[in-house]
């Protein structure tokens, strides 16, 4: 999104029975994984594309199947400022997740080689997961990616040195 320009969003309006709580929790988890912004109780938003629209449609279906009511809407914010505020809020949430990755990279520097390899694999998966809900990339994204890549290349260098020593 270009700063200041208005883009289209897909909204899910939903109401679920208070009990049982399992579908509520399942829905909440799925919305979090998608990185949907909670506009109000029972109203979430995502920047519109084929994937986000489809995912919210499936969630609407799940809400109906759980005895609730749901509708999917396509919308535009009335002002660019409103959209900026939303994008900033969403970016702040993923930035927090990237900072957790950065902290894990710092901690991994002290790990022995074996566990460090496993940490690299785990953090790469984590970056992919966060990437799926990163619609307005904050600067922390590049920092986290670079930090994980650097940790991985140090391991490669370690392995190469060990290989040369063995020959």
């Amino acid at each position, binding site marked *: 999104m270009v700063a200041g320009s208005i883009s289209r969003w897909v909204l899910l309006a939903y109401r679920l029975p208070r009990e049982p709580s399992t579908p509520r929790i*399942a829905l909440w988890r*799925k919305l979090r*994984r998608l990185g949907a912004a909670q506009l109000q109780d029972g109203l979430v938003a995502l920047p519109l594309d*084929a994937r986000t629209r*489809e*995912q919210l*449609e*499936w969630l*609407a*279906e*799940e809400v109906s*199947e759980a005895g609730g009511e749901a509708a999917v809407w396509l919308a535009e914010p009335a002002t660019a400022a409103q959209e900026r505020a939303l994008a900033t809020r969403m970016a702040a949430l993923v930035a927090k997740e990237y900072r957790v990755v950065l902290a894990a990279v710092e901690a991994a520097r002290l790990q022995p080689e074996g566990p460090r390899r496993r940490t690299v694999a785990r953090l790469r998966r984590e970056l*992919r997961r966060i990437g*799926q809900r990163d619609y307005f990339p904050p600067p922390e994204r590049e920092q986290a990616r670079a930090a994980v890549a650097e940790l991985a290349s140090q391991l490669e260098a370690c392995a190469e040195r060990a290989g040369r020593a063995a020959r």
Partner: protein
Amino acid sequence: MRWATRSGVHIDRAACAWLIRRFLDPQAEFVFVADPDEVPVDATAFDMRGVELSHHGGDCTFETMLRRFGLDDPVLWDLARIVHEADLADERYDAPEAPGLDVLLRGLSMICADQEVVTIGGRLFDGLYEHRRRALLLGREPS
């Protein structure tokens, strides 16, 4: 028979179309619609909100079809694991193949019309089916 689904075919719809042609209806004819109201009366709709052959209880449509049509081939259920993760990425299953398949189908849908995505995607699924069949027989990844 005629079958209808949403246009802009991606992984789940491509996998279902393959499943229909190969295991249910070799003469299947597919119609792609932009809105559920456009589904022809004589067509069976799938992977659309509000129809039986769609997402249910956290399953993707491919899984729903296997259940509804009683297809219990373990190879198909192994494909279902991959299709589910490529479609929903909710980590219900461990499917390292899924992100790659997702990208292949997305790329295909950028350069082809829906009918062609179904045709070419069908060959991809033929190959994937054969690969997973051999993997299950051997108990390890086939070379």
